[in-house]
């Protein structure tokens, strides 16, 4: 007797379960209905989160993936359903986030005919995804899903798009789970050249003023302990990229803070003073390097990365060490000598004090005037004992949150770094509550970003997703306003913004709410938010024209940071 055949849609469900998927974010529609029909019978095994817009599904999958380390999955229909996920796909690509987007597609007989809700999704997503593939036959489902998950999670992670033709969803096939851990054209962990390791070890051993740049690659490679062992043995101070912030605990004595345009003064200035620069799983984004022509020219650069195309892409590299940094960091730690760089490490102090006195103290501990953004972030971080997951939107809220939130646990930063996607925060925070259900998820937003994906409050309501939303409302698109003040002669072109009554909005969705206008109420408001059972929207009316400082103006050298604005 032959095995009973199943539909392609059923094969998808079984393949997802075989990959260990338990949660998916999605939105039904015409061309994905056969899949939704079988999903109905898999509700006990697959928790489907109905979002309010497909962009929300993609960002939720990202948030889920970033905190859990697992692949985030979203399920959408063809045409607009699929194109609505594009921002999330591009965001996941540039931030190396493993997600799999499964989109319906018209039947293969209709492909290329401009059929209803037909879009060339593979063509559209090829340049912004790690892999995109059209499933045209039911018998290809198991293979395509196995390949998709392997590609999404291995090597440098990234988004994979599966374009699932309707006839392949309906068609019958035999099913057997597919195991896949090898693709001959794809090397997820390139070989490490022993000669390069030797050169790196020699440079590190001879270095008098070494500096480590910690990127998200450390978290993606689960190499947090290996990093710690390496920097502790070599006694090297570290600067973290935006996405690498929680790879090393904030209070670690070697963690000298954040790199980049709005990062900390110490690691930025020292980038142009160090003699050996060791970049681990980071990609020298222009927001980190500032002017490339003057970036770390005095230093020998060692770059540890799993992606060969990152070597020398922006900054010339003297010693490339390819491969998963969990492996390469251990190799280096084993071979290097123990060092003591106390004097060099202490030299950061002058800059730390300067930044504290001129920027941090006035921002975080003001005694009068309106509430500052940094003050809010610091208070929430303290109240959660620096153990919460930080999710941010994009703009001033993001920079303030990443500057002043502190981290004691890994995989705690969920922010749109490369793409800078406004509207990312709320859906990503929803995803994070599913990816790390045991943790507190604090979502910092501005009034602009919240309104970009505010419809997801419906998802928060329906799922009872316990997102602690902190809306720092300044009635402006604050980051653009700051740039207008600095570089466009204060011409506030379309950055002042009228806001709705957020109390009514929260109330409409049955979400806890409190507005804080006075400094005296801040602690109490935060306490109420954290004590509240479930989602809460804390609206803090912050200083309208607050500025993020320090700042390396665009085009300036990394060691030049403005500590105050003269405008």
């Amino acid at each position, binding site marked *: 007797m032959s095995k009973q055949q199943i539909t392609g849609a059923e094969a998808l469900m079984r393949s997802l379960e075989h990959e260990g998927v338990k949660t998916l974010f999605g939105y039904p529609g015409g061309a994905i209905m056969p899949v939704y029909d079988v999903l109905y019978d898999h509700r006990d095994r697959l928790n489907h989160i109905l979002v309010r817009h497909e962009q929300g599904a993609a960002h939720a999958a990202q948030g889920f993936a970033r905190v859990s380390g697992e692949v985030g999955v979203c399920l959408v229909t063809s045409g607009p359903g699929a194109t609505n996920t594009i921002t999330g796909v591009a965001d996941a690509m540039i931030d190396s986030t493993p997600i799999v987007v499964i989109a319906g597609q018209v039947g293969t007989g209709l492909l290329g005919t401009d059929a209803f809700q037909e879009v060339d999704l593979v063509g559209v997503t090829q340049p912004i995804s790690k892999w995109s593939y059209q499933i045209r036959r039911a018998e290809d489902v198991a293979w395509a899903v196995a390949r998709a998950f392997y590609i999404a999670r291995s090597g440098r992670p990234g988004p994979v798009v599966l374009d699932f033709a309707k006839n392949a969803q309906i068609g019958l096939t035999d099913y057997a789970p597919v195991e896949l*851990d090898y693709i*001959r054209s794809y090397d997820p962990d390139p070989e490490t050249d022993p000669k390069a390791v030797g050169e790196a070890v020699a440079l590190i051993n001879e270095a008098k003023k070494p500096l480590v740049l910690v990127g998200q690659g450390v978290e993606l490679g689960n190499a947090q302990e290996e990093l710690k062992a390496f920097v502790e043995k070599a006694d090297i101070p570290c600067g973290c990229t935006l996405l690498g912030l929680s790879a090393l605990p904030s209070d670690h004595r070697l963690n000298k803070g954040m790199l980049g345009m709005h990062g900390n003064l110490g690691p930025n200035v020292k980038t142009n003073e160090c003699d050996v620069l060791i970049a681990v799983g980071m990609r020298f984004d222009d927001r980190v390097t500032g002017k490339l022509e003057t970036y770390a020219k005095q230093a020998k650069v060692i770059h540890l990365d799993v992606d060969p195309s990152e070597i020398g892409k922006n900054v010339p590299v003297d010693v490339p060490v390819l491969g998963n940094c969990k492996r390469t960091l251990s190799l280096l730690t084993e071979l290097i000598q123990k060092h003591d760089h106390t004097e060099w490490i202490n030299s950061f102090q002058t800059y730390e004090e300067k930044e504290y006195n001129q920027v941090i103290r006035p921002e975080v501990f003001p005694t009068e005037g309106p509430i500052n953004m940094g003050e809010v972030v610091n208070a929430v971080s303290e109240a959660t004992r620096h153990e919460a997951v930080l999710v941010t939107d994009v703009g001033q809220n993001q920079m303030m949150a990443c500057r002043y939130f502190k981290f004691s646990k890994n995989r705690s930063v969920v922010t749109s770094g490369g793409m800078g996607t406004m509207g990312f925060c709320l859906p990503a925070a929803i995803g994070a509550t599913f990816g790390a259900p045991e943790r507190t998820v604090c979502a910092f937003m501005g009034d602009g970003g919240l309104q970009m994906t505010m419809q997801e409050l419906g998802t928060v309501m329906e799922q009872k997703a316990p997102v602690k939303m902190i809306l720092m409302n300044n009635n402006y698109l604050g980051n653009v306003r700051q740039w207008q003040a600095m570089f466009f002669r204060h011409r506030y072109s379309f950055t002042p913004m009228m806001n709705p009554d957020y109390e009514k909005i929260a109330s409409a969705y049955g979400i806890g709410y409190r507005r804080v206008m006075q400094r005296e109420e801040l602690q109490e408001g935060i306490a109420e938010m954290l004590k509240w059972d479930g989602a809460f929207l804390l609206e803090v009316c912050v200083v309208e024209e607050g500025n993020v400082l320090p700042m390396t103006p665009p085009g300036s050298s990394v060691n030049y940071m403005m500590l105050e604005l003269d405008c």
Partner: protein
Amino acid sequence: MENKTLYTIIVHSENIAGILNQITAVFTRRQINIESLNVSASSIKGVHKYTITCWTTPDIIEKVVRQIEKKLDVIQAHYFTDKEIFLREVAMYKLATPRLEANTEVSKVIRRYGAHIVEVNQVFSIVEMTGMSADITSLYEELRALDCVLQFVRSGRIAVSTSCFERVNEYLAHREERYNKEKHS
């Protein structure tokens, strides 16, 4: 302006629909014009070979090739200067037979370039030439001056590297060996 070199990029990929698009997108992103492009099956079953030429700088070509190689279904990508490869191009010239017969100079030119007449009928004749790009162009210029060219087409460059082995074979064998070793260790 920086000094640009004509590079030849040789790419081997899986034979899957849509890869050409992904490869050309790497050039489009950087606004690099592709001078010529040739795609065909390679000596390895299921593997396609792309020969692409473009003018650019040493720094950019390195990045372009790495970004091509990063594409999931691309097996390998390498770049070469003209010194490092053996290269040829094929061209066909469709000439008006009456003109060809009327002017003996035409046949002389064809012979001088080592081109061959591969088809003759009363209306037109076809001349084929295999050679270097510059020679193909100058044959065209000469024939045009003799006012006998009806159509002209050229293949774009094909090339083989001057190293002994087809590197992609070695690479695939090495990949497989490594995988088996890692799996059994």
